């Protein structure tokens, strides 16, 4: 239910994480329209990812992770569909209906005493070292957000790190996915 000042009849519904993928025209202002709808109506964005997916059709896909009861998320989907450049909205919340992944880059403060431990953790999580001109120690890790969380937690216990995360992107596992 919408967060109206008038008491909602049902406050007991369970709030859970949802991944919405939104296909939009890649035109100026479209991202502002989408995120403006979230802030204007008081919905949360846990993470947001946007990139062009079809150059000739000028289409972008926005992946939004949000949290809410199914009523709230249903309302979010319908509000998104009111935005003119939005073509379709899919909710990938059904168990097993979608795969998701995100990328994190981690800059690790490495020294002789922690080196061995860190490489062990990185090996275990299949984090890949990225060579760079400044010879700083940067690892890239891709996969489910949960796995990245665990990786970061473990490395964090060993040494100081700086992290950047893309936020998850997700795609439906059904064959011949058709937008509806």
């Amino acid at each position: 239910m919408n967060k109206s000042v008038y008491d909602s009849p049902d406050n007991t519904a369970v709030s859970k994480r949802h991944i919405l993928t939104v296909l939009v025209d890649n035109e100026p202002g479209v991202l502002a329209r989408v995120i403006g709808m979230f802030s204007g109506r008081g919905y949360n964005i846990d993470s947001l990812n946007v990139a062009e997916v079809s150059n000739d059709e000028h289409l972008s896909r926005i992946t939004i992770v949000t949290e809410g009861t199914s009523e709230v998320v249903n309302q979010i989907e319908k509000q998104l569909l009111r935005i003119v450049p939005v073509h379709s909205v899919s909710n990938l919340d059904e168990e097993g209906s979608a795969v998701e992944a995100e990328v994190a880059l981690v800059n690790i403060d490495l020294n002789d005493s922690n080196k061995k431990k860190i490489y062990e953790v990185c090996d275990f999580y299949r984090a890949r070292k990225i060579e760079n001109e400044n010879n700083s120690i940067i690892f890239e890790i891709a996969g489910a957000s949960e796995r990245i969380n665990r990786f970061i937690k473990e490395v964090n216990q060993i040494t100081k790190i700086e992290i950047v995360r893309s936020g998850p992107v997700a795609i439906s596992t059904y064959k011949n996915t058709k937008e509806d």
Partner: protein
Amino acid sequence: MKQEMTGAEIVLQSLVDQGVEVVFGYPGGAVLPIYDTLFKQNSIKHVLVRQEGGAIHAAEGYARSTGKVGVVLVTSGPGATNVVTGLTDAMMDSIPIVCITGQVPQHLIGSDAFQECDTTGITRPCTKHNYLVKDPNKLSPVFHEAFTIAQDGRPGPVLIDIPKDVQFAKGNYVEKEKILIPSHRLFEPEIFKHDDKINEVIDLISKAKKPIFYIGGGCINSGPKASELVSKFVEITGAPATMTLMGLGVIGSSHPNSLGMLGMHGMYEANMAMHECDVMVNIGARFDDRVTGRLDAFSPNSKKIHIDIDESNINKTIKVDVPVVGDVTMVLTKIIQTWKDKKLKTNASDLKLWWDKINNWKKIDCLNFSNDEKEIKPQYAIQRLYELTKDKKTFITTEVGQHQMWAAQFYKFEKPNRWLTSGGLGTMGYGFPAAIGAQVANPDALIIDIAGDASILMNIQEMSTAVQYRLPVKIFILNNEYMGMVRQWQELLHGGRYSESYTDSLPDFVKLAESYKAVGLRAKKPEELDDVINEMINTDKTVIADIWVSKEENCFPMIQSGSAHNEMVLSKDQKQDESSAEKGKILV
């Protein structure tokens, strides 16, 4: 055939192609090329307002009274920011508007140039869609698409921002018929996909023991046919019908099945029937908080059918059992057809019991007020206004507040599109410019703005517009020297502390009218009222009728904030219970 023109010429040609006859606007630096082109042509009439806020409300009045798109033309910066209230108003009440704003030349965008503002940024949440057009070749496709979007599905305002250099630059004009809506998605009625829903709807209605129709502004937006169909279906079923503030006129007030308006200041019988019904048929309404009252006590025992063109209205605040997404005319046509094919009937004896109950509620006579011999009661003023104008082609606009609710309660509407009021946003200052727009669209009609003394001052500058274009708009001010609704809430919820709700130093409205070369009239006593109203109607000029009414009259009946439909307060003496009053205080 493609033709090369300047951007400004393309703007005008697009408007002509879209059948636009009138533009409401105000010139300024960033729209001078468009005004120059306007000067050189004769097909489009321009109405010069005195503040841009007036232009957009006038366009709303024009649109509402005709069903056509209202067009606004204003300059950049303050011109654009002044229309924001009207855009939001049109968004909330679903009024089709195309608003053209000038913008600083492209090379100055982002430099904090004189009269620059981020118009598309500011108006993004208060328009259905908006454009910043950077290429003159894109102007005509954008215009044709904008007119489509403004009217498509649930209507609303669309804004087109045009930098000054684009207005000067040459580009190709493409005719309306040649434009294919590009990738943008338009409204697709669900109705053709879900026949089973129609069966469910008529099944519920035919078996209902205590049905009620809850009718909203969507029926008016769907066109005059929708109102006919709704009335027809109400008659076929024999069920009672109540209308929202926006829906007044869909079913005539004198129709035997009409219970009048529902909601916060609606009829007692309408609210009680909503509370006790077993099947509710919402047609084109959106369960607004002014209608529902406390959500957890809203019509607790009913199955709810919701017919709405905007899918986001389904289950937004009230969970419904059978949603149908579609245009009212389309859905009702199908429902009536199926009903007839199946030769369905409602149960006459059940309905009789239901009507008996409703007729008992009617006996309360909720609009009853004690008339006075010395003072004009505001309710009486509207009653007289109705009696003396009902046989004419009359349009009523209002501002916002007590006078608006009294107008809704005491003025009886028999036809759609005759009642223009700001419902969703509740914009004071709406009524007078809206009346100007309605008069421009309907030169022969009697257009009356029922106003309050506070609201009318919010756009009083438009007197100059009304007089310039010889628009015989009538302003009927219920003057109590208070912001009446604010005062009423302060009396009921804030211990009678009238904080800043009394207006000192009001103008002399008669002299004010005269200073604009309009006509000013005044009634101070009940016996003067009819003469003043008659003189107002018979004067072929802009008129302000200043009606001095009882100062501390309250608008009843009332569902106070935080209360339910069956907890209506009928008079001042009937106090709301303390705990719910306390809870209600935090609500609007």
